[in-house]
């Protein structure tokens, strides 16, 4: 059962950093372009992010995941190239369609901003187990109920995936064909969905009872089974990320 998310299990300095620090970093760096409003600054942020993915030994995975949105970015260039309101200078024309320089530049800006946002998040997501992130957030004061929702989503999604095969087992064991060529498997997927949802909701009801008697929702301080995550560089990195964001603001204001 693969846990949900992009986490890649590896040894690296970034993996060793505590989740909160990585989260602060990702948020700050993702916002830098929006605050600075400048393509050059965005490139600097991009390079920093790429560098950290290299240090975290997840560059390849990051770029592969980015390729997934390549199609969307391509449509951005085509559509904006044609319809951007500021379009004035035709650059290329394919049949009746004309792409303008201003539109393409605008698309470049939109996609650089997007890629930077994605890569900042990747620095966090590829190197941090989601459960660790939520645990640390709870330790830092995230209300336990919210923490529970986050954690249990992370667990439920893979367990629902497992549930799909359980339901298919039930159906197969009573003679419904679910194995074979792609179309058989596709067709077999639909009758799973109703039972999947309903059985998850029913299981939820019983889980709620179990949670009640395990003190869930008890007010007062809670404790943690795992020791807290401490890292020497936690504060330096957080401060650096914050100053990058402030720097971007200053840049914007200074014009």
């Amino acid at each position, binding site marked *: 059962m693969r*846990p949900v998310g992009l986490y890649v299990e590896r040894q690296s300095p970034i993996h060793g950093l505590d989740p909160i620090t990585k989260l602060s970093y990702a948020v700050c760096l993702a916002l830098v372009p929006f605050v600075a409003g400048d393509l050059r600054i965005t490139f600097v942020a991009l390079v920093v992010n790429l560098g950290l993915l290299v240090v975290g030994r997840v560059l390849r995975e990051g770029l592969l995941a980015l390729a997934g949105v390549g199609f969307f970015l391509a449509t951005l260039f085509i559509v904006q190239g044609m319809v951007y309101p500021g379009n004035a200078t035709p650059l290329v024309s394919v049949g009746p369609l004309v792409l303008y320089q201003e539109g393409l530049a605008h698309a470049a800006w939109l996609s650089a901003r997007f890629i930077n946002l994605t890569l900042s998040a990747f620095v966090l997501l590829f190197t941090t187990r989601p459960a660790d992130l939520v645990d640390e957030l709870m330790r830092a004061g995230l209300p336990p109920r919210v923490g529970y929702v986050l954690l249990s989503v992370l667990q439920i999604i893979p367990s629902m995936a497992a549930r799909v095969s359980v339901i298919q087992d*039930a*159906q197969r064991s009573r003679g419904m064909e679910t194995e074979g060529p792609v179309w058989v498997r596709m067709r077999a997927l639909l009758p799973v969905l109703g039972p999947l949802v309903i*059985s998850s909701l029913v*299981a939820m009801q019983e889980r709620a009872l179990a949670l009640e*008697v395990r003190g869930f929702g008890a007010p007062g301080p809670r404790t943690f089974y795992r020791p807290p995550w401490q890292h020497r560089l936690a504060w330096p990195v957080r401060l650096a990320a914050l100053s990058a964001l402030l720097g971007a603001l200053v840049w914007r204001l200074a014009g």
Partner: protein
Amino acid sequence: MTPIVEVEGLTYRYPTGQANALENVSFAVEAGQLVGVVGPNLAGKSTLCYALLGLVPQVFRGQYEGRVTVAGMDVNRTPVHELARRAGLVFQNPFTQLSGARLTVEEEVAFGLENFGVPRGEMRRRVEWAMDQVGIVHLREKSPFLLSGGELQRLAIACMLAQRPDVLVLDEPTSQLDPSGTREVFDCIARLRADGLTVVMVEHKLERLLEHADRLLLLADGRVRAWGPPGEVLQSGQLESCGLALPAPIRVAACLGARSASGSLPLRIEDTVAALRVARLAAKAGSFEPAVRTMDTPADREESRLSTSRTVPRIALRGVSFAYPDGTRVFQELSLALGGVEPGAAPEGYVAAGAGPVALIGENGAGKTTLVKLIAGLLRPQSGEILIDGQAIRAQTAAQIARRVGLVFQNPDDQLFKSRALEEAMFGALNLGLSPREAERRAREALERVGLGSLAEENPYDLSLGQRKMLALASVLAMQTPILILDEPTIAQDHPGVERIGRLVRELQTEGRLVIVITHDMEFVASYCPRVVVLARGAVLAAGSARAVFAQPELLGQAGLEPPSTLRLARALGLSADPLTPGEFIEYWTGLGAGPSDRPAASVPPG
């Protein structure tokens, strides 16, 4: 001393209920006592458990009257998490009590302690201790989602033990446990009671309850039918009139007229032993008049009739190896023949069980469920071959295999997926290509057979756990497969339900089908399954006739099992015979009265 649990005039009806689930229930429990709650299915036992923790009415709502106090708190006014600091509850269904937010067994055990703010050092100690109490230390790193049924139930108990409640409520906590696991749980509870723990325990295993309980509460139709010391409840005759079965040794004693010194029925096996010794001495003195009634018909009476010995086993596993994707290795080069072939006539390298219904028994986590899933084609071996009626199943899909092998899952919720019971029962038959009319006819017949005839229109999730198990059984029965595998069918069933399943096993066998039953209930095996396969840590420890296997206590011990209590009784009395059921015991014993004949164990005539 004021009672720690007090229930006064509790009457309750679920919001969707047609009748009261509990009606005017009153009793009180002193600190340190163990109260056993018994009763037939739907008696209201689980509802009572919910009421002790305030889940009824706080979560379930509905109409509630009366007053329940636990550790001085009125459960209707105190939030459940507040009550939960002093009281714990282990639910009936082990498959649905995980927090759903923890990745390993040990973190799952810690979950409740984290919520209550137990300091880390203390928490670690308690988690270790609780895991050790129920024997799951070796699973600490495993994902709770990947445990076997019994392992899950142990985990559920550990979670509650770690919270160290003053009042522990347990709803059939040992239903999925192997006999040694059951004993461990009872022993552990006995130890904790020495430190003042109060226990309310719903349990069908009456024999154990009688050994440990201070009080018995007998519920039926939501009402208290008997309440008092176990001996009194036993003498009152109410247990039988509510359809419950007395433990085998007590039935033997009752039947043979053996009484303890005080003239009442003996409660424990030792008492029965003593009483029978006395009776025997009396008999030698000439005053022994056994009041013999015929009781059970032992399974192997039919054995000779059924043994149409074959040369090709119905199911053969040849060198099967299997491991789960997480690396758990379950089988290594397993070879086994089930159905038809006698142990002596098995092909080279096979262990064979012989003809007749087969019981697959073994400790929790031994691989029983895994084995039957392999046979049904739901899991595929990494190497080796599985043959059904001489034909390899490798190239067949599970759906094709299902035409010949019907499998009833251990967890009924894994098997049910329709929103009407009738549709559920028809599903398999329709897949066989039957017309809707024929499928419905078969489905209704199957529902009738398992006693659910009147519930055909219900949503399966509106049924109780025991009924859902029966529905899963009916849905497979309707397919009328030549081979039928039941994974722990007797869980959550009361005595009439267990007997119903037993009768069904016999009927199916006489219809010429092979029935394989996985169970931890040795009395059930003794009564209905003449053939036994013992599995331990993925290997076959023994296979053959039930009598031969049960005659080897050390071997059973290695597999976390123990012989049926009648046999233990015979051993304790130093008898040389191996009676498996009360009926056999009585027949043998009365035979002794006429003049002891020390026949060799293996040749005891059945029945």
